[in-house]
Protein backbone atom coordinates (compact mmCIF):
# COMPACT_ATOMS: atom_id res chain seq x y z
CA UNK A 1 0.00 0.00 0.00
CA UNK A 2 1.26 3.51 0.64
CA UNK A 3 4.16 2.46 2.85
CA UNK A 4 6.83 5.09 3.62
CA UNK A 5 8.25 6.14 0.25
CA UNK A 6 12.00 5.81 0.04
CA UNK A 7 14.14 6.77 -2.88
CA UNK A 8 16.51 3.83 -2.96
CA UNK A 9 18.21 2.53 0.15
CA UNK A 10 19.01 5.02 2.89
CA UNK A 11 22.63 5.09 4.01
CA UNK A 12 23.72 3.02 7.00
CA UNK A 13 24.57 6.26 8.76
CA UNK A 14 20.95 7.34 8.57
CA UNK A 15 19.76 4.01 10.01
CA UNK A 16 22.26 4.22 12.86
CA UNK A 17 21.38 7.85 13.55
CA UNK A 18 17.64 7.14 13.60
CA UNK A 19 18.02 4.36 16.14
CA UNK A 20 20.51 6.37 18.22
CA UNK A 21 18.19 9.36 18.40
CA UNK A 22 15.19 7.16 19.21
CA UNK A 23 17.18 5.44 21.96
CA UNK A 24 18.41 8.73 23.36
CA UNK A 25 14.94 10.30 23.52
CA UNK A 26 13.54 7.10 25.02
CA UNK A 27 16.32 7.03 27.63
CA UNK A 28 15.70 10.61 28.65
CA UNK A 29 11.95 9.96 28.94
CA UNK A 30 12.52 6.88 31.10
CA UNK A 31 14.95 8.70 33.40
CA UNK A 32 12.43 11.51 33.70
CA UNK A 33 9.56 9.24 34.72
CA UNK A 34 11.82 7.24 37.05
CA UNK A 35 13.07 10.34 38.83
CA UNK A 36 9.63 11.90 39.13
CA UNK A 37 7.91 8.79 40.53
CA UNK A 38 10.76 7.57 42.75
CA UNK A 39 9.88 9.71 45.83
CA UNK A 40 6.25 8.52 45.76
CA UNK A 41 7.27 4.90 45.28
CA UNK A 42 9.82 5.02 48.11
CA UNK A 43 7.31 6.73 50.40
CA UNK A 44 4.64 4.12 49.54
CA UNK A 45 7.01 1.26 50.33
CA UNK A 46 8.13 2.83 53.62
CA UNK A 47 4.51 3.46 54.63
CA UNK A 48 3.50 -0.10 53.77
CA UNK A 49 6.39 -1.45 55.83
CA UNK A 50 5.49 0.73 58.84
CA UNK A 51 1.85 -0.31 58.62
CA UNK A 52 2.84 -3.98 58.43
CA UNK A 53 5.19 -3.67 61.41
CA UNK A 54 2.54 -1.93 63.51
CA UNK A 55 0.03 -4.59 62.50
CA UNK A 56 2.10 -7.62 63.49
CA UNK A 57 3.24 -6.05 66.77
CA UNK A 58 0.16 -4.79 68.60
CA UNK A 59 0.84 -1.79 70.84
CA UNK A 60 3.87 -0.62 68.89
CA UNK A 61 4.08 2.99 67.74
CA UNK A 62 7.77 3.39 66.93
CA UNK A 63 10.19 1.22 65.04
CA UNK A 64 13.83 1.04 64.04
CA UNK A 65 15.75 -1.15 61.64
CA UNK A 66 18.20 -3.63 63.16
CA UNK A 67 20.95 -5.65 61.50
CA UNK A 68 23.32 -8.27 62.84
CA UNK A 69 26.93 -7.08 62.58
CA UNK A 70 30.03 -8.42 64.33
CA UNK A 71 28.07 -10.63 66.70
CA UNK A 72 25.53 -8.10 67.92
CA UNK A 73 22.35 -6.37 66.82
CA UNK A 74 22.95 -2.78 65.82
CA UNK A 75 20.53 -0.04 64.88
CA UNK A 76 20.92 1.28 61.36
CA UNK A 77 19.17 4.10 59.59
CA UNK A 78 19.31 2.61 56.11
CA UNK A 79 20.30 -1.06 55.90
CA UNK A 80 22.71 -2.15 53.19
CA UNK A 81 21.24 -3.91 50.22
CA UNK A 82 20.99 -7.71 50.64
CA UNK A 83 21.67 -7.44 54.35
CA UNK A 84 19.08 -9.31 56.41
CA UNK A 85 17.22 -6.76 58.48
CA UNK A 86 14.65 -7.01 61.28
CA UNK A 87 12.70 -4.26 62.98
CA UNK A 88 12.58 -3.48 66.69
CA UNK A 89 9.17 -2.26 67.81
CA UNK A 90 8.79 0.11 70.77
CA UNK A 91 5.70 1.48 72.48
CA UNK A 92 4.81 5.11 73.26
CA UNK A 93 7.22 5.27 76.21
CA UNK A 94 10.04 3.88 74.08
CA UNK A 95 10.02 0.50 75.83
CA UNK A 96 10.86 -2.53 73.73
CA UNK A 97 7.87 -4.65 72.71
CA UNK A 98 9.11 -7.16 70.17
CA UNK A 99 10.73 -7.76 66.83
CA UNK A 100 9.08 -7.66 63.44
CA UNK A 101 10.90 -10.21 61.33
CA UNK A 102 10.69 -10.34 57.52
CA UNK A 103 10.96 -13.87 56.18
CA UNK A 104 10.43 -15.55 52.84
CA UNK A 105 10.32 -19.02 51.41
CA UNK A 106 8.75 -21.17 48.72
CA UNK A 107 4.95 -21.45 48.74
CA UNK A 108 2.64 -23.42 46.48
CA UNK A 109 3.16 -21.18 43.43
CA UNK A 110 6.01 -18.81 44.13
CA UNK A 111 7.95 -17.24 46.96
CA UNK A 112 5.81 -16.11 49.88
CA UNK A 113 7.21 -13.10 51.73
CA UNK A 114 5.82 -12.47 55.19
CA UNK A 115 6.47 -10.30 58.22
CA UNK A 116 5.83 -11.71 61.66
CA UNK A 117 5.90 -10.18 65.11
CA UNK A 118 7.94 -11.98 67.74
CA UNK A 119 8.18 -11.37 71.48
CA UNK A 120 11.50 -12.85 72.64
CA UNK A 121 10.60 -12.71 76.35
CA UNK A 122 7.62 -15.05 76.04
CA UNK A 123 8.97 -16.75 72.92
CA UNK A 124 5.69 -16.27 71.09
CA UNK A 125 4.65 -15.07 67.65
CA UNK A 126 2.11 -12.26 68.05
CA UNK A 127 1.13 -11.49 64.48
CA UNK A 128 1.69 -12.40 60.85
CA UNK A 129 1.22 -10.41 57.67
CA UNK A 130 1.75 -11.68 54.13
CA UNK A 131 3.70 -9.08 52.15
CA UNK A 132 3.96 -10.90 48.84
CA UNK A 133 2.40 -14.06 47.48
CA UNK A 134 1.13 -15.54 44.26
CA UNK A 135 -0.87 -18.31 45.90
CA UNK A 136 -3.93 -19.67 44.10
CA UNK A 137 -6.82 -17.17 44.22
CA UNK A 138 -9.69 -18.59 46.24
CA UNK A 139 -7.61 -21.30 47.90
CA UNK A 140 -4.01 -20.51 48.80
CA UNK A 141 -4.66 -16.79 49.11
CA UNK A 142 -6.62 -17.56 52.28
CA UNK A 143 -3.25 -17.37 54.09
CA UNK A 144 -3.90 -13.62 54.11
CA UNK A 145 -7.63 -13.39 53.37
CA UNK A 146 -8.84 -15.87 56.01
CA UNK A 147 -9.16 -13.85 59.24
CA UNK A 148 -9.24 -17.03 61.33
CA UNK A 149 -5.91 -18.28 60.00
CA UNK A 150 -4.22 -14.88 60.31
CA UNK A 151 -5.71 -14.51 63.80
CA UNK A 152 -4.19 -17.87 64.76
CA UNK A 153 -0.80 -16.19 64.78
CA UNK A 154 -1.75 -13.71 67.50
CA UNK A 155 -0.34 -15.89 70.29
CA UNK A 156 1.62 -18.84 69.05
CA UNK A 157 4.52 -20.48 70.87
CA UNK A 158 7.64 -21.17 68.81
CA UNK A 159 8.87 -23.82 71.27
CA UNK A 160 9.88 -26.39 70.13
CA UNK A 161 8.51 -25.30 66.73
CA UNK A 162 5.22 -24.27 65.19
CA UNK A 163 3.08 -27.07 63.79
CA UNK A 164 0.24 -26.73 61.30
CA UNK A 165 -2.46 -29.23 62.26
CA UNK A 166 -5.70 -30.30 60.60
CA UNK A 167 -8.35 -27.61 60.92
CA UNK A 168 -10.14 -27.73 64.27
CA UNK A 169 -7.62 -29.98 66.06
CA UNK A 170 -5.42 -27.29 67.66
CA UNK A 171 -4.70 -28.27 71.25
CA UNK A 172 -1.17 -27.08 72.05
CA UNK A 173 0.11 -23.47 72.24
CA UNK A 174 2.53 -24.20 69.39
CA UNK A 175 -0.14 -25.54 67.03
CA UNK A 176 -2.15 -23.65 64.44
CA UNK A 177 -5.19 -24.78 62.46
CA UNK A 178 -4.27 -25.20 58.80
CA UNK A 179 -6.72 -23.92 56.18
CA UNK A 180 -8.92 -26.62 54.67
CA UNK A 181 -8.10 -26.78 50.96
CA UNK A 182 -4.88 -24.81 51.37
CA UNK A 183 -2.76 -27.13 53.47
CA UNK A 184 0.39 -26.60 51.42
CA UNK A 185 0.18 -22.82 51.65
CA UNK A 186 -0.58 -22.95 55.40
CA UNK A 187 2.34 -25.27 56.02
CA UNK A 188 4.58 -23.08 53.88
CA UNK A 189 3.84 -20.04 56.08
CA UNK A 190 4.57 -22.09 59.21
CA UNK A 191 7.78 -23.45 57.73
CA UNK A 192 8.93 -19.97 56.73
CA UNK A 193 8.46 -18.74 60.31
CA UNK A 194 10.19 -21.79 61.79
CA UNK A 195 13.17 -21.42 59.47
CA UNK A 196 13.49 -17.69 60.09
CA UNK A 197 13.23 -18.29 63.82
CA UNK A 198 15.93 -20.95 63.73
CA UNK A 199 18.19 -18.67 61.72
CA UNK A 200 17.72 -15.63 63.93
CA UNK A 201 17.31 -17.04 67.43
CA UNK A 202 21.06 -17.36 67.99
CA UNK A 203 21.64 -13.81 66.78
CA UNK A 204 19.07 -12.10 69.02
CA UNK A 205 20.34 -10.77 72.34
CA UNK A 206 19.01 -12.24 75.59
CA UNK A 207 15.55 -10.91 76.50
CA UNK A 208 15.94 -7.59 78.31
CA UNK A 209 19.10 -6.61 76.44
CA UNK A 210 17.46 -5.48 73.21
CA UNK A 211 18.87 -2.41 71.45
CA UNK A 212 17.45 0.78 72.93
CA UNK A 213 15.27 3.06 70.83
CA UNK A 214 17.67 5.64 69.43
CA UNK A 215 15.77 8.45 67.83
CA UNK A 216 12.14 9.27 67.38
CA UNK A 217 11.38 9.21 63.70
CA UNK A 218 10.46 12.52 62.11
CA UNK A 219 7.18 11.11 60.82
CA UNK A 220 5.99 10.52 64.38
CA UNK A 221 6.75 14.03 65.63
CA UNK A 222 5.01 15.43 62.61
CA UNK A 223 1.93 13.39 63.34
CA UNK A 224 1.89 14.56 66.96
CA UNK A 225 2.01 18.26 66.14
Amino acid at each position, binding site marked *: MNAPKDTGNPSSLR*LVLTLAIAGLVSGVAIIGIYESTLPTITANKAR*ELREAVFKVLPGVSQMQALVHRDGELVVVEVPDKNEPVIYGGHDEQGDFVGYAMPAAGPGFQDTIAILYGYKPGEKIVVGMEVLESRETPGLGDKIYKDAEFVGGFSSLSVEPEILAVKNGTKSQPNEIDAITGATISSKAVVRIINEAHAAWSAQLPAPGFEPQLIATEPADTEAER
Partner: protein
Amino acid sequence: MKKNQSQEEFIKGIWRDNPVFVQVLGMCPMLAVTNSAINAVAMGMATFFVLVGSSFLVSTFRHLIPKQVRISCFIIIIATFVTIADYTLLALVPKVHTELGAFIPLIVANCLILGRQEAFASRYPTKLAVMDAMGMASGFLLALLSLGAVREILGDGALFGVNLFGENFEPWIIMILPPGGFLTLGVILLFFNWFKFKKDEFLEDVAAAQRNEN
Protein backbone atom coordinates in the same frame (compact mmCIF):
# COMPACT_ATOMS: atom_id res chain seq x y z
CA MET B 1 -16.35 12.96 4.70
CA LYS B 2 -13.10 13.31 6.67
CA LYS B 3 -14.96 13.28 9.93
CA ASN B 4 -16.91 10.18 8.97
CA GLN B 5 -13.71 8.36 8.18
CA SER B 6 -12.16 9.03 11.57
CA GLN B 7 -15.39 7.98 13.27
CA GLU B 8 -15.35 4.84 11.20
CA GLU B 9 -11.75 4.07 12.28
CA PHE B 10 -12.80 4.49 15.91
CA ILE B 11 -15.90 2.34 15.78
CA LYS B 12 -14.41 -0.55 13.81
CA GLY B 13 -12.03 -1.30 16.71
CA ILE B 14 -14.87 -1.59 19.18
CA TRP B 15 -17.13 -3.92 17.20
CA ARG B 16 -16.40 -5.06 13.64
CA ASP B 17 -12.63 -5.58 14.06
CA ASN B 18 -12.59 -5.98 17.82
CA PRO B 19 -8.95 -6.92 18.58
CA VAL B 20 -9.91 -9.70 20.98
CA PHE B 21 -13.19 -11.19 19.81
CA VAL B 22 -12.67 -10.84 16.06
CA GLN B 23 -8.91 -10.63 15.47
CA VAL B 24 -8.07 -12.82 18.51
CA LEU B 25 -4.98 -10.76 19.38
CA GLY B 26 -3.47 -10.02 22.78
CA MET B 27 -4.58 -13.32 24.29
CA CYS B 28 -1.83 -13.43 26.91
CA PRO B 29 -2.99 -10.45 29.02
CA MET B 30 -6.56 -11.34 28.09
CA LEU B 31 -6.41 -14.67 29.89
CA ALA B 32 -3.91 -13.79 32.58
CA VAL B 33 -5.20 -10.65 34.25
CA THR B 34 -8.96 -10.85 33.85
CA ASN B 35 -9.65 -12.62 37.15
CA SER B 36 -11.19 -9.42 38.52
CA ALA B 37 -12.83 -6.41 36.94
CA ILE B 38 -10.45 -3.90 38.50
CA ASN B 39 -7.36 -5.73 37.19
CA ALA B 40 -8.96 -5.86 33.75
CA VAL B 41 -9.63 -2.11 33.79
CA ALA B 42 -6.09 -1.29 34.96
CA MET B 43 -4.61 -3.49 32.23
CA GLY B 44 -6.98 -1.98 29.64
CA MET B 45 -6.10 1.59 30.64
CA ALA B 46 -2.36 0.85 30.53
CA THR B 47 -2.72 -0.71 27.08
CA PHE B 48 -4.88 2.22 25.95
CA PHE B 49 -2.19 4.69 26.99
CA VAL B 50 0.60 2.72 25.34
CA LEU B 51 -1.30 2.08 22.10
CA VAL B 52 -2.55 5.65 21.61
CA GLY B 53 0.83 7.15 22.57
CA SER B 54 2.82 4.90 20.25
CA SER B 55 0.39 5.27 17.35
CA PHE B 56 0.60 9.04 17.65
CA LEU B 57 4.41 9.07 17.58
CA VAL B 58 4.77 6.40 14.91
CA SER B 59 2.28 8.14 12.64
CA THR B 60 3.81 11.58 13.21
CA PHE B 61 7.34 10.39 12.41
CA ARG B 62 6.36 7.87 9.74
CA HIS B 63 8.25 9.70 6.99
CA LEU B 64 11.41 10.02 9.10
CA ILE B 65 11.69 6.35 10.08
CA PRO B 66 13.58 4.36 7.42
CA LYS B 67 11.65 1.17 6.71
CA GLN B 68 14.70 -1.04 7.32
CA VAL B 69 14.73 -0.15 11.02
CA ARG B 70 11.03 0.53 11.50
CA ILE B 71 10.32 -2.46 13.77
CA SER B 72 13.19 -1.52 16.10
CA CYS B 73 11.92 2.05 16.23
CA PHE B 74 8.36 0.90 16.99
CA ILE B 75 9.64 -1.31 19.81
CA ILE B 76 11.72 1.53 21.30
CA ILE B 77 8.67 3.81 21.24
CA ILE B 78 6.34 1.13 22.68
CA ALA B 79 8.83 0.13 25.39
CA THR B 80 9.21 3.74 26.48
CA PHE B 81 5.47 4.16 26.90
CA VAL B 82 5.23 0.83 28.74
CA THR B 83 7.95 1.91 31.18
CA ILE B 84 6.11 5.17 31.79
CA ALA B 85 2.86 3.27 32.44
CA ASP B 86 4.69 0.81 34.69
CA TYR B 87 6.19 3.48 36.97
CA THR B 88 2.99 5.55 37.00
CA LEU B 89 0.92 2.56 38.15
CA LEU B 90 3.56 1.65 40.73
CA ALA B 91 3.45 5.17 42.16
CA LEU B 92 -0.31 5.74 42.02
CA VAL B 93 -1.90 2.32 42.64
CA PRO B 94 0.76 0.02 44.15
CA LYS B 95 -1.86 -2.63 45.06
CA VAL B 96 -3.05 -3.02 41.47
CA HIS B 97 0.54 -3.00 40.26
CA THR B 98 1.35 -5.92 42.56
CA GLU B 99 -1.63 -7.88 41.20
CA LEU B 100 -0.74 -7.28 37.56
CA GLY B 101 2.90 -8.12 38.26
CA ALA B 102 4.92 -9.07 35.20
CA PHE B 103 2.05 -8.41 32.80
CA ILE B 104 2.62 -4.64 32.69
CA PRO B 105 6.16 -4.92 31.25
CA LEU B 106 4.82 -7.64 28.95
CA ILE B 107 2.56 -5.09 27.21
CA VAL B 108 5.65 -4.51 25.04
CA ALA B 109 5.13 -7.97 23.60
CA ASN B 110 1.39 -7.53 23.01
CA CYS B 111 1.02 -8.24 19.30
CA LEU B 112 -2.04 -5.97 19.16
CA ILE B 113 0.14 -2.91 19.72
CA LEU B 114 2.96 -3.72 17.31
CA GLY B 115 0.35 -4.95 14.84
CA ARG B 116 -1.46 -1.60 14.79
CA GLN B 117 1.83 0.29 14.30
CA GLU B 118 2.81 -1.87 11.35
CA ALA B 119 -0.63 -2.21 9.77
CA PHE B 120 -2.07 1.25 10.38
CA ALA B 121 -0.13 3.97 12.19
CA SER B 122 2.91 3.80 9.91
CA ARG B 123 0.74 4.24 6.79
CA TYR B 124 -1.92 6.79 7.71
CA PRO B 125 -2.04 10.42 8.89
CA THR B 126 -1.75 11.14 12.60
CA LYS B 127 -5.41 11.95 13.16
CA LEU B 128 -6.66 8.70 11.68
CA ALA B 129 -3.92 6.73 13.44
CA VAL B 130 -4.93 8.14 16.83
CA MET B 131 -8.61 7.44 16.15
CA ASP B 132 -7.76 3.89 15.09
CA ALA B 133 -5.61 3.37 18.21
CA MET B 134 -8.33 4.74 20.46
CA GLY B 135 -10.92 2.47 18.88
CA MET B 136 -8.74 -0.63 19.10
CA ALA B 137 -7.71 0.15 22.68
CA SER B 138 -11.32 0.78 23.72
CA GLY B 139 -12.32 -2.50 22.11
CA PHE B 140 -9.54 -4.23 24.01
CA LEU B 141 -10.56 -2.53 27.27
CA LEU B 142 -14.21 -3.51 26.80
CA ALA B 143 -13.23 -7.10 26.01
CA LEU B 144 -11.01 -7.30 29.10
CA LEU B 145 -13.74 -5.76 31.22
CA SER B 146 -16.45 -8.12 30.00
CA LEU B 147 -14.26 -11.13 30.72
CA GLY B 148 -13.11 -9.72 34.06
CA ALA B 149 -16.66 -8.90 35.16
CA VAL B 150 -18.03 -12.34 34.24
CA ARG B 151 -15.17 -14.12 35.97
CA GLU B 152 -15.29 -11.99 39.11
CA ILE B 153 -19.07 -12.30 39.46
CA LEU B 154 -19.05 -16.09 39.02
CA GLY B 155 -15.78 -16.82 40.75
CA ASP B 156 -15.91 -14.40 43.64
CA GLY B 157 -19.55 -13.26 43.88
CA ALA B 158 -18.45 -9.65 43.56
CA LEU B 159 -17.96 -6.89 41.01
CA PHE B 160 -15.18 -4.31 41.47
CA GLY B 161 -14.73 -5.81 44.94
CA VAL B 162 -18.35 -5.09 45.93
CA ASN B 163 -20.03 -8.21 47.23
CA LEU B 164 -23.18 -8.96 45.19
CA PHE B 165 -24.81 -12.06 46.59
CA GLY B 166 -24.17 -12.04 50.33
CA GLU B 167 -22.83 -14.80 52.55
CA ASN B 168 -24.66 -17.77 51.05
CA PHE B 169 -23.08 -17.52 47.62
CA GLU B 170 -20.68 -20.36 46.97
CA PRO B 171 -18.05 -18.95 44.60
CA TRP B 172 -17.28 -20.94 41.49
CA ILE B 173 -13.57 -20.79 42.15
CA ILE B 174 -12.45 -22.25 38.83
CA MET B 175 -13.67 -19.07 37.12
CA ILE B 176 -10.91 -16.95 38.70
CA LEU B 177 -8.31 -19.63 38.02
CA PRO B 178 -6.70 -19.84 34.54
CA PRO B 179 -9.20 -22.43 33.18
CA GLY B 180 -12.01 -19.95 33.87
CA GLY B 181 -10.36 -17.54 31.45
CA PHE B 182 -10.37 -20.11 28.68
CA LEU B 183 -13.97 -21.14 29.39
CA THR B 184 -15.29 -17.58 29.42
CA LEU B 185 -13.32 -16.56 26.35
CA GLY B 186 -14.51 -19.66 24.52
CA VAL B 187 -18.15 -18.93 25.25
CA ILE B 188 -17.81 -15.28 24.18
CA LEU B 189 -16.00 -16.23 20.95
CA LEU B 190 -18.74 -18.76 20.28
CA PHE B 191 -21.32 -16.00 20.59
CA PHE B 192 -19.41 -13.66 18.28
CA ASN B 193 -19.01 -16.33 15.61
CA TRP B 194 -22.65 -17.38 15.91
CA PHE B 195 -23.67 -13.75 15.52
CA LYS B 196 -21.49 -13.37 12.41
CA PHE B 197 -22.86 -16.61 10.97
CA LYS B 198 -26.46 -15.50 11.56
CA LYS B 199 -25.76 -12.11 10.02
CA ASP B 200 -24.22 -13.63 6.88
CA GLU B 201 -27.17 -16.04 6.61
CA PHE B 202 -29.61 -13.16 6.95
CA LEU B 203 -27.80 -11.11 4.27
CA GLU B 204 -27.87 -14.11 1.93
CA ASP B 205 -31.61 -14.54 2.52
CA VAL B 206 -32.19 -10.90 1.72
CA ALA B 207 -30.13 -11.17 -1.46
CA ALA B 208 -32.00 -14.32 -2.52
CA ALA B 209 -35.36 -12.68 -1.89
CA GLN B 210 -34.36 -9.70 -3.98
CA ARG B 211 -33.26 -11.98 -6.82
CA ASN B 212 -36.61 -13.82 -6.69
CA GLU B 213 -38.54 -10.56 -6.88
CA ASN B 214 -36.61 -9.60 -9.96
